[in-house]
């Protein structure tokens, strides 16, 4: 099962660039010059565009939710792997004196 999960993860990693590729444009247009990278953040008291079509609250919630889920999942995974190894150590060390 673990082997399949690792294989699936590896294939997903390979497929990332293809998934991230933007679809081709229908007609070539002159490329607009890229805006320069931001040098600093300017604070304001309220969001600027209330009629924006891309819902920012959903994106922020997904970002924070994803971080919490992955971190808790990883912590749980390390804890469970640790307890499995400890159980195995106990079993093997109990078997060792019996052999001698």
């Amino acid at each position: 099962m673990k082997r399949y999960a690792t294989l699936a993860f590896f294939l997903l990693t390979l497929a990332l660039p293809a998934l991230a590729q933007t679809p081709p444009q229908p007609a070539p247009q002159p490329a607009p010059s890229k805006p320069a990278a931001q040098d600093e953040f300017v604070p304001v008291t309220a969001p600027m565009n209330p009629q924006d079509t891309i819902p920012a609250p959903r994106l922020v919630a997904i970002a924070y939710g994803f971080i919490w889920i992955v971190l808790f999942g990883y912590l749980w995974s390390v804890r469970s792997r640790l307890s499995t190894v400890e159980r195995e150590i106990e079993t093997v060390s109990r078997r060792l004196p019996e052999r001698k």
Partner: protein
Amino acid sequence: MRRLFVPVAIIAAAMFAYAPFLILSAPYESTMGLVQKIFYFHASCGMAMFAAAFASGIGSAMFLFTRKPAADRLAVAGAELTSIIGLLVLVTGPLWARKAWGVWWQWDARLTSTLVMWLIFNSYLLLRRYGGPGSDRLAAAVALFGMANVPFVYWSVNVWRTLHPKTSVIPSLQPGMRGPFWFCVVAFLLLFALLLSLRMELEKRRQQLDQLYLAAED
């Protein structure tokens, strides 16, 4: 470290519980608005990812020179954390970009070099898992390449023209944003230290188990 583990875990948990309130009370950014609040965890994750990559690279260098199992444990734990925290960076970044830039992804220097670094540490982990005998030394060399990528990722935004904000946004943060940001950075670095020590403990137990199996075979 074992004595410090519980107090540090309590401090980190308290900081993570308080962080959302600080982030909510921080001012909005003038052009990006609410979505810029992803920055507080995204950039903190980025710093923790760099720390993890350095831990893995330094552990690998020490392992190559000394062959000490403790150095190998540091390398493995650092590589796994680079992969996990790197995933957080690579997922939260596009969520922010979708709103701020209008696209999920740009093949610019910062984003591409971060993806390459993440792939290098994933290849380290695959090599350790399936590489067979001797893969520990080969993987150590891979981790050194991964660590060498860190300064390139960091400075890429200043050297090449990218959509990603430059490194100057952090020293120029306004007081209302500066406090919550550094609070989140400390919280993530504490969490990173805790996870690193826990993962190193797991690797130590695995090495003990291997020794026991070898003793049982003799």
